């Protein structure tokens, strides 16, 4: 009997380990031989722990599973109360275009044989037959843009590093996925770690870098454990070694280290303070050497681009947003999780059709797109197509493609205040608009909450200063949630003095 049960954090957080124990115990009791594979998550968080059982060569899904549901798995499967049918036939799975996440939830994350059998290493094999410049050109032609949030063309960054001359060059993977509503990096590292390793090895070939680092946040213990083991396995198999080797490093709970220059300082063992640019990290990065700093999803998208060609990848998407994007749907949501699709769906299609609205069954009031530094979108803007330029045109951003749904009980003034409070806690302190501005922002919003509407021009002015004068996106983008909340939900900001008291 072949069974799969995720070792992904989603499954573990809702009792996955207990279900795994129950499966093995029940199999032992009944004397049934079971092969239990711990896979990544299929991304349907509301169905976790999601157990799959093979029935005549097809994987059938059961979830959300509790230990009490386990014995029935060994009886008539069709009559199981948690039976969902073949996994691939579920609406959530059928609607997706899984390129980067093709293997996540399908294979055993730490089986190199399964990785290869499902198309893994084809990209690296092809890259090994190409010249450096050809690999860079292929990535440029694919239209891949940084999936960490900034959307900078990956191929151009690689070209700069490739053409720089230095005694050593580095590939640094930014896995400091600190934005609320984002978990794509975590799921990829937990569910298909070799894909990231392959992407980094290809980046090494393209740029002449010989050493790679993955900087993973300490809040991701499962991803850290799996990535460390995967690196060992890749080294034993000769995928990593003298030509290109890599190390897993762990962050220490500083949100700002998701900013690339702050991350580099942290990796060097310094305070995670932001560096002024120029010099660009591509020319003077880790230890002053040319360094590619890319997000997990950017690097993990490279193997499929090399394996299937730039044109194949570029065919998906709209405008200047090419390829696919793993949407991460979170917060007060009925059907939350990871949904990889081509750019171009409207926000409304994502929120109403895919996510099914709020779990409270109340109206969706606002959706924050792009993490803590992203704007709050009201229903009036739900016709916005999901793309970098399209969201920028509505004073928002797609960031790392996280979406947080809020129902009509949300207090947008409180959310605006939280954005400023978070910025104040996490500011690295290097530039004044962020360090001081965030503290003044909290105070000003408290004045508003106390009924002083005279504070509105002040918060607007402060946001302009932070936006224009901050060194990095932390201070520079905190105005997005604040101003979007104020602009789209003005009623929440007008409080009578009596009500406030």
């Amino acid at each position, binding site marked *: 009997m072949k069974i799969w049960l995720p070792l992904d*954090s989603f499954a573990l957080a809702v009792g996955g380990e207990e279900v795994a124990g129950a499966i093995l115990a029940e199999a032992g009791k009944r004397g049934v031989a079971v092969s239990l594979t711990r896979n990544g998550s299929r991304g349907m968080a509301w169905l976790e722990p999601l157990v799959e059982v093979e029935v005549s060569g097809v994987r059938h899904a059961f979830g959300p599973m509790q230990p009490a549901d386990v014995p029935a798995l060994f009886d008539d499967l069709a009559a199981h109360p948690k039976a969902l049918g073949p996994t691939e036939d579920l609406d959530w799975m059928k609607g997706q275009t899984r390129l980067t996440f093709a293997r996540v939830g399908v294979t055993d994350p730490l089986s190199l044989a399964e990785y290869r059998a499902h198309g893994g290493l084809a990209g690296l094999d092809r890259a090994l037959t190409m010249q450096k410049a050809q690999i860079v050109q292929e990535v440029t032609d694919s239209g891949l843009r940084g999936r960490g949030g900034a959307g900078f063309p990956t191929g151009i960054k690689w070209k700069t590093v490739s053409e720089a001359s230095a005694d050593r060059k580095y590939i640094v993977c930014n896995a400091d996925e*600190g934005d*609320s509503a984002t*978990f794509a990096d975590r799921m990829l590292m937990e569910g298909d770690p070799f894909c990231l390793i392959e992407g980094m090895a290809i980046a090494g070939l393209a740029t002449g870098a010989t050493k790679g680092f993955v900087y993973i946040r300490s809040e991701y213990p499962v991803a850290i454990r799996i990535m460390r083991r995967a690196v060992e396995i890749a080294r034993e198999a000769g995928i990593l070694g003298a030509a290109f080797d890599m190390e897993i490093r762990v*962050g220490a709970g500083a949100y700002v280290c998701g900013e690339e220059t702050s991350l580099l300082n942290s990796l060097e063992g310094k305070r995670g303070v932001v560096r002024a640019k120029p010099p660009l990290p591509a020319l003077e990065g*880790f*230890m002053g050497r040319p360094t590619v700093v890319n997000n997990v999803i950017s690097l993990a998208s490279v193997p499929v681009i090399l394996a299937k060609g730039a044109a194949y990848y570029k065919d998906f998407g709209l405008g200047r947003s090419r390829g696919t994007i793993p949407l991460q749907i979170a917060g007060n949501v009925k059907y939350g999780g990871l949904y990889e699709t081509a750019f171009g769906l409207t926000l409304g299609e994502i929120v109403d059709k895919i996510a099914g609205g709020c779990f409270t069954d109340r109206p969706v009031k606002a959706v924050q797109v792009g993490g803590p530094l992203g704007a709050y979108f009201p229903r009036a803007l739900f016709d916005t197509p999901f793309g970098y330029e399209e969201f920028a045109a509505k004073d928002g951003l797609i960031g790392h493609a996280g979406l947080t749904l809020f129902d009509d009980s949300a207090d947008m003034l409180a959310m605006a205040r939280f954005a400023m409070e978070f910025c104040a806690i996490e500011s690295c302190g290097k530039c004044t608009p962020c360090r001081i501005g965030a503290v003044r922002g909290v105070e000003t919003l408290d004045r508003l909450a106390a009924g002083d509407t005279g504070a509105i021009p002040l918060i607007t002015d402060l946001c302009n200063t932070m936006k224009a004068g901050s060194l990095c996106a932390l201070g520079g983008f905190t105005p997005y949630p604040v101003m979007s909340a104020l602009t789209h939900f003005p009623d929440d900001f007008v409080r009578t003095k009596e009500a406030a008291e």
Partner: protein
Amino acid sequence: MLDSHAQTDRIAEILEAHLGLEGPLLPILHAIQEAFGHVPDTAIPQIAAALTLSKAEVHGVISFYHDFREKPAGRHVLKLCRAEACQAAFGDSVADRAKQKLGIDWHETTPDGAVTLEPVFCLGLCACGPAAMVGDRLVGMLTPKKVEKLIDEVLK
């Protein structure tokens, strides 16, 4: 608790094991914290000497990061997510109940030294929030009732 000689020896071992790394300070601090539960003040001169840094530089790094403790925490550390997605899923009510049950506020430890309560900004469990972490154990879909149960389990 180790005596001071044992501490010095253990830190020397940790330093020795990490000195070959490029940018070894964070891995060193993580290893020391794992060994002692915090980064003792008395370790700073030893680290500084090994890395040819000033004591102020080492202190500056320790104090920059939320993870590094200058004093030991309680026997269990309960981290509750306070980020937006968990707030949208009513994480505030979970946090309020936890504080009430433990009788402490953020960053405090219960008088018996059993539990330290800390905020965390995102555990990557945003589609099954509100989320928490106890040690390395992850917990999702919390409610005020479930967090009480979780605390009872931890205290057992």
